[in-house]
């Protein structure tokens, strides 16, 4: 009897303790928020991967076209063996894979060379107009990656394939050869001209955080300038260089716009365009296998990156604090280096934009003479002779609707990811040494690994039918917001974490001691303090989404089309002036937002 009653008492104590633990859990906001985040993230990030895997391993209704007898839903290895080893595997997988690899390697090496040299010149030498150079050098990165491809077409389109002369032929009279107009070389060059600015940002950040004292110390022991560069400076910025290399590579793997515009005429496919072709022809399983392989490549490169720099956080741009810097004197080379840099910026940054703008003013494509000047594609009334009778973009309700969609999507996404990123930051900063904090941090990082087009493909399937408590989102604006939000989460989470690490400790605790509830703490302390960081992150996401195409090209529906996807459609139809005018509109919107970001960041630096 006694033993029993004792046992009962023990039970009631443990039960009371369990209740206490639950109460404490609920009283600890970061744990509650963390638990909610874990569930949401698992659902939105792990879930899609599982769904995708499942799709590739079961018969689909589309497969009735191959195998009329099968019953959809049953397990099969058919798709994998077909894609990996089947009769068409060379064209479906291996050739596009080789192309993807070749392009990605080429792009990362080229981008790194250009970006690295430029960064060094801007940060460490007495190159004139350094400030202007660095402002110009980062422009390509804030624009869609395919802008340069479109400009390339305007210039190098050859008569044989494009039919209409490009600027090159208009000026020289000679038709550029196919290899220069289309295929691997222009794709690599155009992408390099886009991604170099990423390498530039990363490396110039690293270079400016190298303390000049380190170099002076080497100089004191008699090292020459070249030795210092080779033995001191270079090894210090090596991690940044390697990350730039690897991250450029992983982004180039997933890029879609440029290979679509420049690859098709010569039947040149990369993984992303092959994925798109499969998706468009409803060979969904094939598309998913390609997507999974792209994720694998991307994950491997990012893993390599973390191994090299041993700090996962550094995939975001390093913000170098300004130490005292000594500038290398260019001396006699100054003139020629300045000219080269100016030439590069003129050709690589400004020319594409000028060419695109010019194109929009040409009534008949390919006629570069002044008599052909028109504003028709901007403000023209519908005229059946041009652009299939569509009105100029500034008075075309469809396109203005698309512009509104772009802005609305970017704003909503930026707001949602901003809030989510802050929350993630809070959980990670508070739970830094806990399993929960680490799990949230790792999960939010995952979308970074998934190439945009693959990510879009996953969400298309996952949410085009009701899924648990979430109604079907197909064709709605919400699916775009959801996809963009999750895909941008890694970036906003990084900035959320770093800003919360700064403010999440004592400043919040001081309010806690003063008796402020969690809500009050968030409202009166954490939110106001993270406001400027939030705003900067908000605007960055805004720009990223404004220029996004690969991610949403599979998800837009007629009523939710954005400017980027419209550009794609118009250019695909050969209405190049219209498409390019839309691109110019988009670029203008982005540059304005970019300007706003800089203003905000600057004012933040001034107040702190």
């Amino acid at each position, binding site marked *: 009897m006694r033993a029993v009653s004792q046992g009962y008492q023990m039970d009631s104590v443990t039960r009371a303790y369990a209740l206490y633990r639950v109460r404490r859990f609920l009283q600890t906001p970061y744990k509650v928020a963390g638990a909610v985040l874990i569930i949401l993230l698992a659902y939105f990030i792990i879930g899609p991967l599982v769904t995708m895997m499942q799709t590739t391993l079961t018969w689909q209704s589309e497969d009735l076209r191959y195998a009329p007898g099968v019953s959809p839903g049953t397990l099969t290895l058919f798709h994998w063996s077909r894609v990996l080893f*089947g009769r068409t595997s060379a064209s479906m997988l291996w050739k596009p894979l080789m192309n993807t690899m070749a392009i990605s390697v080429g792009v990362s090496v080229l981008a790194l060379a250009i970006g690295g040299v430029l960064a060094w010149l801007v940060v460490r030498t007495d190159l004139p107009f350094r400030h202007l150079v660095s402002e110009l050098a980062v422009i390509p990165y804030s624009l869609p990656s395919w802008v340069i491809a479109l400009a390339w077409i305007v210039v190098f389109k050859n008569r044989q394939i494009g039919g209409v002369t490009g600027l090159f032929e208009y000026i020289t009279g000679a038709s550029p050869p196919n290899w220069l107009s289309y295929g691997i070389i222009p794709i690599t060059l155009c992408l390099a001209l886009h991604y170099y600015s990423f390498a530039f940002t990363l490396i110039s950040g690293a270079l400016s955080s190298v303390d000049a004292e380190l170099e002076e110390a080497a100089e004191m022991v008699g090292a020459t300038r070249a030795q210092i560069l080779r033995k001191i400076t270079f090894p210090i910025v090596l991690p940044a260089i390697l990350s730039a290399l690897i991250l450029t590579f992983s982004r180039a793997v997933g890029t879609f716009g440029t290979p679509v515009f420049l690859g098709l*005429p010569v039947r040149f*496919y990369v993984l992303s365009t092959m994925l798109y072709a499969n998706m468009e022809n409803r060979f969904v399983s094939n598309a998913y296998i390609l997507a999974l392989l792209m994720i694998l490549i991307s994950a491997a490169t990012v893993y390599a990156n973390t191994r090299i720099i041993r700090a996962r956080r550094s995939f975001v741009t390093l913000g170098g604090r300004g130490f005292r810097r000594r500038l290398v004197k260019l001396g006699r080379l100054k003139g020629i280096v300045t000219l080269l840099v100016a030439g590069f910026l003129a050709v690589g940054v400004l020319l594409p934009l000028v060419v695109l703008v010019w194109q929009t003013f040409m009534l008949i494509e390919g006629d570069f003479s002044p008599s052909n000047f028109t504003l028709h594609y901007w403000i023209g009334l519908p005229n059946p002779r041009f652009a299939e009778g569509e009105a100029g973009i500034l008075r075309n309700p469809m396109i203005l609707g698309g512009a509104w969609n772009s802005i609305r999507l970017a704003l909503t996404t930026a707001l949602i990811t901003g809030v989510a990123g802050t929350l993630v930051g809070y959980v990670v900063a508070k739970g830094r040494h806990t399993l929960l904090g680490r799990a949230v941090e790792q999960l939010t990082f995952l979308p970074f690994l998934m190439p945009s087009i693959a990510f879009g493909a996953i969400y298309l399937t996952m949410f085009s039918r009701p899924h648990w408590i979430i109604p079907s989102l197909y064709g709605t604006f919400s699916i775009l917001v959801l996809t963009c939000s999750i895909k941008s989460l890694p970036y906003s989470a990084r900035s959320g974490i770093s800003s919360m690490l700064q403010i999440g400790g004592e400043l919040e605790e001081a309010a806690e001691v003063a008796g402020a509830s969690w809500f009050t703490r968030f409202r009166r302390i954490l939110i106001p303090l993270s406001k400027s960081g939030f705003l900067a992150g908000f605007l960055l996401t805004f720009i990223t989404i404004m220029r996004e195409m690969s991610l949403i090209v599979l998800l837009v529906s007629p009523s939710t089309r954005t400017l980027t996807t419209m550009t794609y459609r118009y250019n695909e139809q050969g209405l190049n002036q219209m498409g390019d005018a839309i691109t110019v509109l988009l670029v203008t919107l982005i540059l304005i937002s970019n300007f706003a970001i800089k203003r905000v960041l600057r004012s933040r630096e001034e107040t702190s």
Partner: protein
Amino acid sequence: MSRKVLLSVLVVLTLVMLQAGLAWGETPQEKWLKDAKLGPYAPAAEDWQAIYEAAKKEGRVVIYSMSSRVFKLKTLFESAYPGIEVIPYDLPTNTQIEKIKREQASKVYNADVCLLTGGSLIIHDLVKSHLLWNFVPPEVRDVLPPQYREPIMGHHISMKVVIYNSEKYSEPPVKSLWDLTKPEWKGKVLFKDPFRDTGNMEWLMTVIQHSEEMAAEYKRVFGKDITLTTENAGQEFIKMLVKNGLVLMSSDGDIAKAVGTKGQKDPPIGICDYGKMRDVIDGKLVFNVAFDVKPVTGVFQPAFLGIVNQAPHPNAAKLLIKFMMGDKQGGLGLEPWHVPGNYSVRTDVVTPAGAKPLSEMNCWMPDFEYIYYHTAEFFDFWLSLL
């Protein structure tokens, strides 16, 4: 007290059962069909005045169209039927089918009317599974050939044909499809990417289906029997075409431009929508159809018209469809498609000015059953050529 509880429980239960009973008795789809008077509920004659009134209440009609001329249709329709706005979306056939299937699976009802090609998919993926409903305005029923009445109504017929630059060549420079595989046209034959256009996929598959004729034509051109490295003469033709540097374009407009731009020294040849002749008539381009190419100059491509399942504006949709079927002169809503290169499916409509009569067009008609069951095989074959 407890009786009150019992009573309210009973009332609630009854209500729930009634609700359920209603749902069992009639699916939303059936209710929609009844209200829209479509499918099994289609009347023998339509009261167009009543439909117009109902359509005005609906206020708008959303159309997915594979032809960008739908923008012209918008203007025409809105002036003919004030009070109803047309929301046109220009979407390739592939995308339309994909969208409709997913939208319907998600119970998202965006579109009212679809104008699209790709007969095999329309029939198998849309009509058979009741995602697209056939609506034949009673007024035109008798002037439609049976294959354009059921299972889904046709709208117009276009065709993708061989075109050449008529400024450079006074005579068609090719006389046979096989000429396109000859070295002199290496890298100079333009074709729209079949991955992006079901029409071009159908074009190639139709050639394969007509392998015997292709083999005979080969013998006529080259004077010997064809040696096959593939399964048949059709596939062989496609393979040789690709190996001869076939250039894939993203749109027929680009092909027309490439072929027909004035002042070219060495213009290419293209296989392209006959409807692009509009640009020749407008004087922007100079090209002509190689009408006499053997065995055919191209493949027909009928476009079909239907009402999307559970369309939110069924009356406006009906009105728009009737309008699009046009009149005998090719006017009203047919006008945008009453141009050289397009032919109404109506037997009583005059041939557009400046065009050959449909009966004189030497083209094959795709066999949609054959195409449906050979798409996957063709997809693989095409991939293996890339």
